[in-house]
């Protein structure tokens, strides 16, 4: 059963329609990627899920019930615009957010200390937020989002501003949450992370869903027309009639086949001209699907 569900949701500001007829649902234990170019309507959709703005039409359900603010205690939200009280001490801040989400003071304090240890910021609990680096503040915000053990985690660009080590730390924490059966939605421009982490995606453009569903199913809908060849010898096979376009980087060629192009014929031709070390027919990357779907207009 879906933890969060949007059904035909529309939101407009004056003449600008931010979200049009959007439907999506996220189940428990599912990691869901909300993708789209800048201004596509991702943040507007998330804000409606969080009750920050109200939809003009359509229906939003949380935990199988019509939207009710009281259920927001079970949601953890990390907005794209990060915000912390700069002059407040880190521990006080975490306890405050925990209490706002319904935890007792003692429980919030205990969980804050545990999470700080896990995210390797224990030494900063007594410091004021403004004394910490941006990456550290990002981790504090991440903890504040998860402190109350929410059933639904909504994260807008969670990896922005993090170095690879900390990004991995956060990624592992998200995978843990997923394995605990939490529903996780994140909006990002980082296609590699979506491919690695998400089970399902919804790609929105100009406020409308243009592609949605299980990531594997979506990818399988696209023809495997890309070939990677590593070779030594003559490169004349790159002029084959089977090929629509090819880039050759000194023995490493990336080839796009024509519609209906025969990869086997190309392999035979290549083998007759050069020594072949690798010949791989690859599925399109999410980035390619993204660009192809939004008509190359994405500036993300």
């Amino acid at each position, binding site marked *: 059963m879906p933890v969060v569900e949007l059904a035909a949701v529309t939101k407009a*500001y*004056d003449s600008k329609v931010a979200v049009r007829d959007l439907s999506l649902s996220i189940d428990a234990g599912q990691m869901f990627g909300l993708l789209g170019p800048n201004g596509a309507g991702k943040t507007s959709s998330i*804000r409606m899920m*969080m*009750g*920050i703005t109200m939809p003009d039409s359509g229906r939003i359900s949380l935990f199988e019930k019509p939207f009710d*603010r009281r259920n*927001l*205690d079970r*949601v953890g*939200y990390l*907005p794209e*615009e*990060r*915000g*912390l*009280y*700069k*002059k*407040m001490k880190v521990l006080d801040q975490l306890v*405050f*957010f925990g*209490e*706002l*989400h319904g935890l007792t003071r003692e429980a919030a304090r205990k969980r804050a200390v545990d999470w700080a240890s896990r995210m390797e910021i224990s030494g900063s609990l007594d410091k004021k937020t403004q004394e910490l680096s941006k990456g550290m503040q990002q981790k504090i*915000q991440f903890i*504040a989002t998860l402190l109350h053990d929410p059933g639904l985690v909504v994260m807008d660009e969670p990896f922005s501003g993090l170095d690879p080590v900390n990004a991995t730390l956060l990624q592992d924490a998200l995978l843990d949450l997923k394995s605990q059966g939490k529903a996780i939605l994140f909006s990002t421009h980082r296609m590699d992370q979506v491919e690695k982490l998400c089970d399902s995606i919804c790609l929105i453009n100009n406020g409308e869903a243009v592609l949605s569903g299980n990531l594997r199913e979506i990818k399988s809908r696209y023809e495997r027309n890309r070939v990677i060849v590593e070779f030594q010898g003559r490169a004349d096979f790159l002029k084959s009639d089977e090929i629509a376009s090819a880039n050759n980087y000194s023995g490493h060629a990336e080839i796009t086949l024509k519609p209906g192009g025969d990869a086997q014929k190309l392999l035979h031709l290549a083998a007759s001209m050069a020594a072949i070390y690798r010949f791989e027919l690859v599925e399109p990357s999410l980035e390619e699907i993204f660009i192809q779907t939004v008509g190359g207009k994405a500036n993300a």
Partner: protein
Amino acid sequence: MRNMLLVARREYLEQIRGRAFRISTVLVPALILFLLGVSGFTGRKLAGGRHIAIAADNASLAADIRADLLGGKRASYTIDTVAPFTEQDRANLQARVQNKSLDGLVIIENSASASPSVTYESQSSADLLDTSRLTEAINAGFLNLRLAQQGISSFQVHSLVQTVPLETLQVSSSGKTGKSQGMAPFYAAMLMTFLMTMPILLYGMDMARSVIEEKGSRIFEVMLAVARPEDLLAGKLLGVGAVGLTQIAIWLAAAALLSGSALAAPILSGQMKIHFSVLEAVLFPIYFILGFFLYSAFFSGLAATCETAQDLQMYITLAVIPTWTSFAILPFLLNNPNSPWVVAASLFPPTAPLVMVPRIGMLSAPYPWGQLALSLALMVFSIWAVIWLASRLYRVGILMYGKRATLPEIFRWLRYS
């Protein structure tokens, strides 16, 4: 409700622990004490230790002036008289003024003529009180002298120039008369208006600055996902209001401790004696809290439409106009606390907190209870209306970044929410 109280507690504790609170709590009374100290010091300097010499061509005139000056209540002088005097005496006395063994020298010549010459020499420019006191004593001396020259005995002179004290009585509408407090209610009115205005405006602006600061730190989106904007606004109002009351309580406690000290004497005695009735003491905190909520909610709503503290500047006038109006009303209040303008100002919510309490102080029983109830009801209703509007501006405004909203945009925001 729980979230509102959590927000209020956070706001209160963070501000109370902050350096700004500690500094302002200590600095404001320190400044007042300093001013009182300066005034006390100046007063003492005026009141005693002034050593003056009077050189006159008429000994009786010099003695009269000396007696008048020494008989004054406010000032005590050491006064030497040299009458009649020689040029050598004049030179000696002037030398003493130069070497500061004398504070001042009065020289009276041609006292018998129609246009006598009177000069006052001193190293410091003569202060207002000194000069007016001297002028008064010298003129009284000349009056005595001239009347005596007309053959009127000194006893007759005394009875002729005897001043008559005017006793002022205050008549209540029930016909009872009581002793009037003279200027005391006016000073009390000024003090109360000032005490009410400054904290209300300061804490109101503090609220606004806090909203802009938090808007800048992008904290609101996180907060709005757990709390309603109304709770955030009300929590903030409660927290900052409690900070204000704490600070005022500290100041009052300090004032109570200091009230017995010599420094407080100038405002607790004499002509500037200030008296507050029990009703004023009850109404003051009520109107203070209502005024604070009204102005702070108003400022918070406006602050949500601004990006920086500079953007807020243009709105300050909106708050300053009612306070100016209240101060401008004070003379009318002194003349007639029941004049239509004063009654209107004591009912109009933005000016009511600043006018109603001093007005009650100027009246005697029976008080206009109906007007008081109406004023409080109007205040409560306006606070509700302003919080309602402000929370709508707040809901949309705190998520709008980039620039200060224009008036049409503000109206659109009210429609969205």
